[in-house]
């Protein structure tokens, strides 16, 4: 297996606090890699560093062996590094269909067109239809996103990321706020992603993590605390103490 996404000595300081502290992480091609840790461990900060929303204080980020530490956020997306957000980030004034069509158009390079209507490119609609079907959004595709119920917006959040044809997908708590019964369904969809798409998942629900991921990295206080395959991490008493243990008592 080869490494698609790699960080070396990544540091992010906010004032005196190191939210990310010397993180060297490797995500293998096609991996189902989970990132866990207690609240405030710096998981989302790490995702923000990977995607270019934040600039690191030190260290590098590499995609396919190329240094992208200083690359603008939107260019990383075009190289296939795509994320979802813990808190929905959607286009309230568009419809789900328009949101997805735009993302598909950007991905296919037709988004700079300013004369033909959005649906003119024949490659856009079929891809949108497929995504809408997968995420059960067909019946609400023409409603304003701002008026959709939360569950639908959560699905659109993930669908929008997939519309960008990710090669590396960073999922920041994809089922946050989704009712218990529907979580499994979202993970089944994510499980059906092509095998060469690498996924880095932040998730609190340990059952979901252990079902989905093959490799787990534990982050504590901004630094990597432990890393290994699922069985090793699940059985690691230190991890249980800092994280799993807490949750079992809760």
């Amino acid at each position, binding site marked *: 297996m080869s490494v698609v996404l790699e960080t070396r000595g990544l540091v992010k300081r906010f004032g005196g606090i190191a939210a990310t502290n010397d993180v060297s992480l490797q995500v293998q091609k096609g991996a189902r890699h989970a990132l866990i840790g207690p609240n405030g461990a710096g998981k989302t900060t790490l995702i923000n560093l990977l*995607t270019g*929303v934040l600039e690191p204080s030190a260290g590098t980020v590499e995609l396919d062996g190329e240094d992208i530490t200083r690359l*603008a*956020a*939107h*260019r990383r*997306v*075009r190289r296939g590094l*795509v*994320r979802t*957000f813990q808190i929905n*980030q*959607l*286009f*309230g*004034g*568009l419809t789900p*269909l*328009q*949101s997805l*069509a*735009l*993302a598909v*158009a*950007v*991905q296919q390079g*037709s*988004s*700079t*067109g*300013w*004369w*033909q*209507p*959005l*649906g*003119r*490119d024949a490659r*856009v*609609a*079929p891809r*949108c*239809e497929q995504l*809408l079907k997968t995420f059960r959004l*067909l019946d609400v*595709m*023409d*409603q*304003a996103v*701002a*008026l959709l119920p939360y569950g639908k917006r959560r699905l659109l959040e993930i669908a*929008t*990321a997939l*519309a*960008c044809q990710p090669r590396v997908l960073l999922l920041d708590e994809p089922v946050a706020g989704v009712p218990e019964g529907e979580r499994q369904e979202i993970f089944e969809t994510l499980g059906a992603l092509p095998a060469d798409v690498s996924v880095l998942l932040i998730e609190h629900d340990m059952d979901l993590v252990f079902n989905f991921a093959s490799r787990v990295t534990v982050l504590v206080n901004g630094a990597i605390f432990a890393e290994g395959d699922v069985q090793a991490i699940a059985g690691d008493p230190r991890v249980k103490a800092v994280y799993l243990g807490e949750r079992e008592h809760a």
Partner: protein
Amino acid sequence: MSDVAASLRAAARWRWWELALLGGLALSWFALPSHSLLLNEIAILALFAVSLDLVLGYAGIVSLGHAAFFGFGAYAAALFAKDVMPDPLVGLAFAIVVSALLGLASSVLILRGTDLTRLMVTLGLASILYELANKLDWLTGGADGLQGVVMAPLVTPFGRFEFDMAGRTAYAYSLVVLIAGVLVGRRLVHSPFGASLKALRDNRLRATSIGLSVHARLVAAYTIAGGMAGAAGALLAQTTGFASLDVFDFHRSADVLLMLVIGGTGYLYGGIFGALAFKLLQDLISAWTPQYWHFWLGLFLVVLVLVGRDRLVRPDRWWRHRTAAAPAAAATEAPP
């Protein structure tokens, strides 16, 4: 064609009221020959307001200095007619190009910062241009303005038209440019580019996260809007035969913002409805009470904002509760 493809295209389909509006505009030239001067001014302000809508309603950039482009286009057209050649169409093209270039150059000012800083820098740019036009009197005529701009007849495939005192040619000219501007704007807002503007207006973080270069899109939008506002300014200079400092004045920027507030933003036609309502109100009230028309216009705006545009212009919603009316208004794409 699948439902999805059909839905995707439906947004760009012509609606009956759009055609009725454009038809009504064309008809007004024939129906109201004695009001051509007022209508000409309305058409020019409408084009100006449509250009601000592209920036404000679509790209979400608030500007309190849109007169910078209007005035720049006006002076460019007037100087071009005076010093280069008097042909109106070539002059219009020249004004559009230089105003678009001003938009391109000044777009760096609106890329960063908050709405408040953008209000200040756009206001500042218009003030700087006002003072420049004032001080460079060897070029602009200073406080006296550029007078005696003589335009050549309008040469079209349908014949040559002299600009007349009654403003018949002027209104036809402005109307055609307005409609052309709206048609171009319409293609623009329904295109992927237009969708990307709405996307970055709604959520810049997400727009970046689907691979859009927010800065490049804003620069393009500001450039296009600058060109369109410049066209409006050029029409004013060409059809009135002069350009004065008034075209850069703060009230121009404020008025055009008020027109959009009246007409509504983000659906392209708000500028036309707003310019119409604003100018007619101004005309009617000032004929009735020349000294106090500002008071009544201000009162109207307060009522408009407190009651809400939707309820004010749709009598069927007057007695309905606000919360019941709101979702229906958002779900249907009806005219205001």
